[in-house]
């Protein structure tokens, strides 16, 4: 049997932009869906950064792009014709935008009765903040991440990036797949109202339950061991690597056998066999002293070598990877072929984020370089919508498309 990608034959009309929406459609594109970005062509530098490389290149690879001007009636009509030939319509605008274009779910069911529409707005389509503008960092601040992710001095730091967009992205892709399943079973499409804010609230459940049930305020200390007590546990500074003194090891020791393995691995120093560290209870009680001992050891060791030594003894340890460790020095990701190569138009090679799972009976995902805005006009307008060259020229002259 010829193996085919799971989503081959599924077409997605993709109105998303910035990050969260494109992450969702990246996941669908990697599994074989034909994702067509409907985009504006803006002269001059793109505020989102370079198009084919960096973050935008990473999250928009393997998609197609058609340049349609949604500010014109003819542009909207073209988009509706594309919807008629699509399975899924997805956007991450605030609630009012698609409606203004007449592209809301109700209207689109008249174009295609079993269409699946997914809106990934910041706050959802209902409620007092339905039309608020939001960004990943503002959502993370609202959802409790920024305050709880504090330095040891208690200063809020939060994420250095927008996890909100990644969580919104994987939630959006999953919702699309649930809806495809439902359509396969019932023949019916539907509208999915996803809130990126709620995508964050949905991944801090234990803290929210603790507050709602035990009526407790959360603090950075209280949320620092979400997987239960462990000691030693945390990140410990390691020896410098050449000029780089920002090297750290993450370490977690829970069970008695893990503690014994840890003590063995570091050569059974005298402090480690003292009675005050003999049980998890005592190690938790004497954590400050324990951490000082552990960090004295890690400071004398290279983070990678310490990780390998501890792992040989069965201890959960891993270096705190920076960009180079992650992308250029991770033998596990290399061995599994995680990073995917794409070829840029100038012939140079770039590696992009891969797919975090393998399917035993599907072809390995391959990535295509991110298209520039309108690169696939010929394919989308010509092959998919069947417009002649003359019709397209007329639409361009009328300002409905950019060629």
């Amino acid at each position, binding site marked *: 049997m010829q193996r*085919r990608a*799971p*989503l081959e034959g599924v077409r997605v009309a993709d109105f998303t932009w910035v*990050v969260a929406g494109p992450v969702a459609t990246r996941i669908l594109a990697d599994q074989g869906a034909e994702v067509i970005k409907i985009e504006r062509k803006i002269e001059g530098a793109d505020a989102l950064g370079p198009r084919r*490389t*960096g973050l935008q290149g*990473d999250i928009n690879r393997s998609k197609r792009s058609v340049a349609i001007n949604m500010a014109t009636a003819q542009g909207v009509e073209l988009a509706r014709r594309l919807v008629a030939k699509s399975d899924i319509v997805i956007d991450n605008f605030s609630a009012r935008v698609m409606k203004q274009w007449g592209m809301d*779910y109700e209207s689109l069911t008249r174009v295609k009765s079993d269409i699946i529409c997914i809106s990934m707005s910041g706050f*959802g389509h*209902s*409620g007092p*903040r339905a039309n608020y*503008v939001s960004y990943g*960092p*503002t959502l993370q*601040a609202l959802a*409790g991440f*920024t*305050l*709880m992710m504090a330095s040891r001095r208690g*200063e*809020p*730091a*939060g994420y250095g*990036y927008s996890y909100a967009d990644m*969580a919104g992205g994987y*939630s959006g892709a*999953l*919702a699309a797949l649930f809806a495809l*399943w439902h359509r396969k079973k*019932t023949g019916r499409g539907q*509208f999915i109202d996803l*809130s990126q804010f709620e*995508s964050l*609230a*949905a991944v*801090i459940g*234990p803290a929210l339950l603790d*507050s*709602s*049930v*035990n009526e407790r305020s959360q603090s950075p200390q209280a949320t620092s061991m979400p*997987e239960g007590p462990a000691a030693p546990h945390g*990140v410990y500074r390691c020896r410098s690597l050449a000029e780089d003194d920002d090297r*750290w090891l993450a370490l977690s020791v829970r069970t008695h056998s893990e503690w014994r393995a840890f003590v063995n691995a570091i050569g059974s120093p005298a402090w480690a066999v003292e009675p005050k560290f003999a049980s998890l209870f005592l190690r938790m009680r004497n954590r400050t002293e324990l951490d000082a001992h552990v960090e004295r050891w890690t400071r004398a060791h290279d983070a990678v070598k310490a990780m390998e030594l501890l792992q040989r003894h069965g201890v959960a*340890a*891993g270096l*705190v990877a920076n*960009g180079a460790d*992650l*992308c250029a020095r991770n033998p*596990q990701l290399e061995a599994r072929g995680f*990073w995917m190569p794409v070829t840029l138009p100038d012939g140079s090679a770039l590696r*992009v*984020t891969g797919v*975090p*799972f*393998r*399917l035993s*009976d599907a072809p390995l995902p391959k990535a295509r370089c991110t298209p520039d805005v309108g690169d696939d006009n010929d394919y989308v307008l010509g092959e998919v919508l069947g417009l002649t060259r003359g019709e397209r020229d007329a639409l361009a002259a009328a300002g409905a498309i950019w060629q």
Partner: protein
Amino acid sequence: MSALAGLRVLDLTDRRAALCGKLFADMGADVILVEPPDGADSRRIGPFLDDRPHRDRSLFFWNYNLNKRSLTLDLSHERGIELLRSLAGSADVVIESFAPGYMERVGLGWADLHRLNPSLVLCSISPFGQSGPWRDYKADDLVLTALGGMIYVNGFPEEAPVRPLGLQAYHSGAYYGAIATMCALLARERDGVGQWVDVSILEATASAVEHVAPSYMSDGVVQQRRGSLHWTRYFRVGRCRDGYVMHCTLGDWTSLVEWVAGDGAAQELTGPQWEEVTYRKERAERLFDILDQWVRPYFRDELLARAQALRIPYASVQAPEELLDDEQLLSRRFFFEVEHPELGRKLRYPGAPYMFSATAGKVYRRPPLLGEHTGEILRDELGLSPDELAALSVQGVI
């Protein structure tokens, strides 16, 4: 009808992947949590109800196991494996998070299960995946966030990296596990056969970091920690009189500067060059230092109310518990009450981040007590008699 009505999932996972099955259960699948006779490991993880540790009082367990049924089965016992194989014969999905190789050793490997039920999808979620030199490495969520690049860039430059709130390596693995499983199920509807899904939590974690890999891969830049300054340089935390706010310099610059200038705090920001977004980006540290001085005398809610009125996307830096009273979440009924008859209490749970128009019928079942559904599952699904159930119980299999 719920979106996944009729789908049967056997959930053999521990805490590392417990969220995956819940994503299916929340959409109406029948998810059977298969626990060892002394309970899933997550029942021993806090917080606990009223801070009293007990396997039927773990809020951690409840969070991840709402809407599932519980079946106890001893998989170190031959009869336990046989019963599981029988259940797998009629299931759509098995999710597991054992150490790689364990399932094969006990006769539940992909080859065995596929022979038994060719349409079954097996989803294996492990820290590093089923292959590669780190396959047998040990890891918890902290170690995976570290290795996956999720924490190096969080925190202040001279201090230790800061881990996320919540188990976000596990959660990324669980979401990608559910995504992969749905892909395999959709392919099964077309091709007629199931597949083995191999999810690496390390890879899922690396996929859930925004800028670290693209910056390195495209520009050779190793991104650093910058305190609360977001890598795009448009956001930083500022301190008010009674709390923190998230500054945002995207949005309507003119309104913001007029306001700041009206308070006599604008310094050089009234210059026309600051209207340029990229100019603001390049001078972000100076810009936020000025804005920090400006917000200091304000009360947080007073500042945010005015920002909202001007459509300036500032946000409150809230504590998680503030979400319980958040008017947006309340309006959308994000939280819902679950009755716990065994406690005589109703508890308030967080919900799912999406509303499906055609499949509103959520059937919510409180998290199961240990082994609560063992009898009904073995009786109804496998036709075991009361005597047989009693014998299994005496043998310690269930």
